[in-house]
C-alpha cells in the first residue's frame, strides 16, 4: 500500500541512482535523521547517553568498519580491539600534544593513523587466506595491546599506565572529560556515525565496493577479470581500520574518558564487534546498526529484568548473559546465517507485495 516503486517515476540519472530508490525508505531515512538530530539531543540525559546511546553509536561505527572488511571484502579479522586501541592512543597523543586543535581533527587523524597501521597488518592478507588470516590478525591484536601496555611513551609515562582524556572542546562546547554535557557527546558521536555510514554506503555500492565483493566471492576469479587484489584488499583494510580507529578514539575520549588498554581493547572487544557484524548481517550497513543496537541493548535489558525485576545476584545475570549471547549466535547461524539484515530484507519484500502476495 505504502511501500511501492509503482508511480514513483525517476526523471534523471541522479534520481535513478540514489541510495534509497523507494519513497517510503527515503522518508523513513529522513525521519530517523530528524529524530536523531532534532529531538533526541533535547531530551537526552546522562543515563540514556552513557548506558545506551553512546555505546550504540560508537559500536555501530566499529561494526560498519569491520563489516566492510569481513562482510564486503571477506577478510576475517580478529584484531578489531587492537585497531580500536590504535585509534584511542593516537587520539590521546594528539589531544595531549596539540590541546588547541579541534577534537574533530584529532578523531579524524586518529582514524587516519589507524588506517596506516591497518594496511600494515593487512599486507599478509595477500598471501594468507581464510582461517589462517583470521589467526594472523590475532598477531595484530596481541602485539598492539602489548605495545600500548609496555611502551611508556604511548601513555605519556603516567604512573598508572592508564590514559585519561583531558577536557577538550569543539567550537567552545566541551566534548571530553567529566564535565561534558550528554547532548554534546551524543551529537559529536552521531555526526561521526552519520558521516561513516554515508561514506560506507556509497563506497560499497560503487566501484570500490564491487571490487571488494568480487574478491570476497572468489579472489582468483576477481583477479582474472581485472580486479587488482593488492589494491582491493588494502583499501578494504584501510577504510575498515579508519572507521574502527574513529570508533576507538570516540570510545576512549568521549565515552569512557579513562582507559586501561588490556581491559578496554582486549580480545573480548574484537569478538564483541565480530558478533555484532554476524548477528546484524554480513555485508549490510543496516545490519551493522542492527547488530550494534542488539548487543548494546541485550545486557541492559538482561540486567533490568534479572537484577531489578527478578532480584537475582549480578554475577548470575552476567553468566546468563554469556549463555544467551552464545546461544543466540548459534541460533542465528543455524536459522538465519545472514543476520537481522536478512529478516529486514524479507520483511521489505513481503511489504512490497502486500496485500496481494500473488
Amino acid at each position, binding site marked *: 500500500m505504502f511501500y511501492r516503486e509503482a508511480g514513483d517515476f525517476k526523471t534523471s540519472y541522479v534520481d535513478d541512482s540514489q541510495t534509497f530508490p523507494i519513497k517510503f525508505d527515503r522518508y523513513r531515512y529522513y525521519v530517523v535523521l530528524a529524530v536523531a538530530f532534532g529531538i533526541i539531543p533535547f531530551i537526552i540525559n546522562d543515563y540514556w547517553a552513557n548506558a545506551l546511546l553512546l555505546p550504540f553509536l560508537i559500536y555501530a561505527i566499529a561494526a560498519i568498519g569491520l563489516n566492510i572488511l569481513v562482510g564486503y571484502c571477506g577478510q*576475517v579479522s580478529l584484531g578489531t580491539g587492537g585497531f580500536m586501541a590504535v585509534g584511542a592512543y593516537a587520539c590521546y597523543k594528539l589531544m595531549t600534544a596539540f590541546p588547541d586543535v579541534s577534537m574533530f581533527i584529532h578523531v579524524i587523524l586518529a582514524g587516519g593513523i589507524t588506517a596506516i597501521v591497518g594496511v600494515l597488518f593487512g599486507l*599478509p592478507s595477500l*598471501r*594468507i*587466506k*581464510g*582461517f*589462517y588470516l*583470521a*589467526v*594472523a590478525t*590475532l*598477531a595484530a*591484536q*596481541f*602485539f598492539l*595491546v*602489548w605495545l600500548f*601496555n*609496555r*611502551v611508556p611513551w604511548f601513555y605519556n609515562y603516567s604512573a598508572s599506565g592508564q590514559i585519561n582524556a583531558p577536557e577538550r572542546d569543539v567550537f567552545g562546547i566541551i566534548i571530553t572529560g567529566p564535565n561534558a554535557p550528554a547532548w554534546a557527546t551524543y551529537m559529536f558521536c552521531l555526526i561521526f556515525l552519520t558521516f561513516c555510514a554515508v561514506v560506507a554506503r556509497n563506497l560499497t555500492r560503487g566501484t570500490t565496493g564491487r571490487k571488494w565483493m568480487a574478491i570476497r566471492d*572468489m579472489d*582468483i*576469479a576477481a583477479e*582474472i577479470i581485472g580486479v587488482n587484489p593488492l589494491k582491493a584488499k588494502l583499501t578494504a583494510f584501510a577504510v575498515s581500520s579508519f572507521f574502527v580507529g574513529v570508533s576507538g578514539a570516540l570510545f576512549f575520549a568521549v565515552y569512557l574518558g579513562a582507559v586501561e588498554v588490556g581491559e578496554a581493547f582486549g*580480545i573480548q572487544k574484537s*569478538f564483541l564487534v*565480530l*558478533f555484532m557484524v*554476524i548477528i546484524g548481517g554480513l555485508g549490510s550497513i543496516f545490519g551493522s546498526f542492527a547488530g550494534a543496537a542488539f548487543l548494546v541493548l541485550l545486557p541492559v535489558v538482561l540486567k533490568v529484568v534479572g537484577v531489578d525485576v527478578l532480584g*537475582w*545476584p549480578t*554475577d*548470575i545475570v552476567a*553468566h*546468563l*548473559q*554469556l*549463555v*544467551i*549471547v*552464545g*546461544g*543466540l*549466535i*548459534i541460533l542465528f*547461524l*543455524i536459522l538465519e*546465517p545472514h543476520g537481522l539484515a536478512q529478516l529486514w530484507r524479507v520483511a521489505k519484500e513481503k511489504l512490497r507485495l502486500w496485500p496481494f502476495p500473488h
Partner: protein
Amino acid sequence: MPEQLVFAMEVILNGLMAGVLYALVALGFVLIYKASGIFNYAQGVMALFAAMTLVGIMNGQVPFAHLINAIFGTHVHYFGWNIPALAAIILTMGVMVLLAWAVQRFVMRHLVGQEPIILFMATIGLAYFLEGVADLMWGSEIKTLDVGLPQGINLWIDETTFNIFDYGFFIDNLDIVATIIAALLVAALVAFSQYTKQGRAMRAVADDHQAALSVGISLNFIWIMVWSVAGFVALVAGIMWGTKSGVQFSLSLIALKALPVLMLGGFTSIPGAIVGGLIIGVGEKLFEFAIGPLVGGATENWFAYVLALIFLVFRPQGLFGEKIIERV
C-alpha cells in the same frame, strides 16, 4: 661453560615442556578439524569446562547451586561428599561425551554443508555458551585442582645439573609428568587413528564425507566420537593447566595460544601440532629470555602470533599442512 649458555639451556628445557602442553591443546583442534573440517574455537573453553566439572565432582558441589538458590531461595551448596580423583575423572569424561553428543545433536548437525567460516563462528558462540554454563554450574571463583600429580622442583635434575654446570636447573615435577602424559596421549591417538576400526573410519570421514557414507560409516557416530576424543584431550589439558595455575577463566585462553601452534604446524597434521608446539614453546621462552628485558618484558603475549604470521607469509600452509591448491 659460560653462565648465559647454561641459563639458555634451562630456558630451552622449560620451553620444551611448555611446548608439549601447547601441543596437547593443539591436538584437540587438529582432531576435530581433520574429521569434520570444523575449526573448533571452543577447545580452550572445553578444557576449562572439563577442569571445572572435575573439581566440582571431586568436591561434591551441587551443579547450578547459585541459580537454584537464587530462584528458590534455598541454600544448597555441597552434597557433603568427596569423590576420589580417578572416579571423578571417569565421571567427567562421561560429561564430556554427553557434551559431544549435545554439540553434535543441537549445533553441528544443523550446520552441515555451511561454509567453514560460519562453522568457526558457531564454535565461538559455543565457547561463550559453554563458558556461561560452566560458571553457572560451578561458580566462577578460582579453584585449586589436585588430582595427586607431583608438584614442585625436581631435586634429581637440580642436583645432577648442579654437579655438571655448577648451576641447578629449576624444572617442575608437574611439567615432567605433563610431558610424559602428553607423549603417551599423542602415541595413543596416533595408534588409535592408524590401527583401530574407528580410527580408520575417522580418517575415511576426514578424507571424503560422501565416500565414507557410501561404504556404511555413520557420520553422526564418527562426529560424536571425534568430539568426545577432543573432550578427552581437553580434559587432560584442563587437568595439567588447572593443576599448574588453578582452574580459572584464563585457562580458556590457552586455546588462543594453540592457534599459532596450529598455523606453524599446519591445521591437518598431528606431527605438525607437536613440532609446532615445541617451536612455539622454546621460541617464546628464548625470545623472552634474550630480547624481553630490552623491550619491557611480557613478550610471550604476542611472540607466538607474530612468529606464526611471519612464517605463514613464506609458507601459507604451515610446516606439514597439505599444499593449498586453488582453482577457479
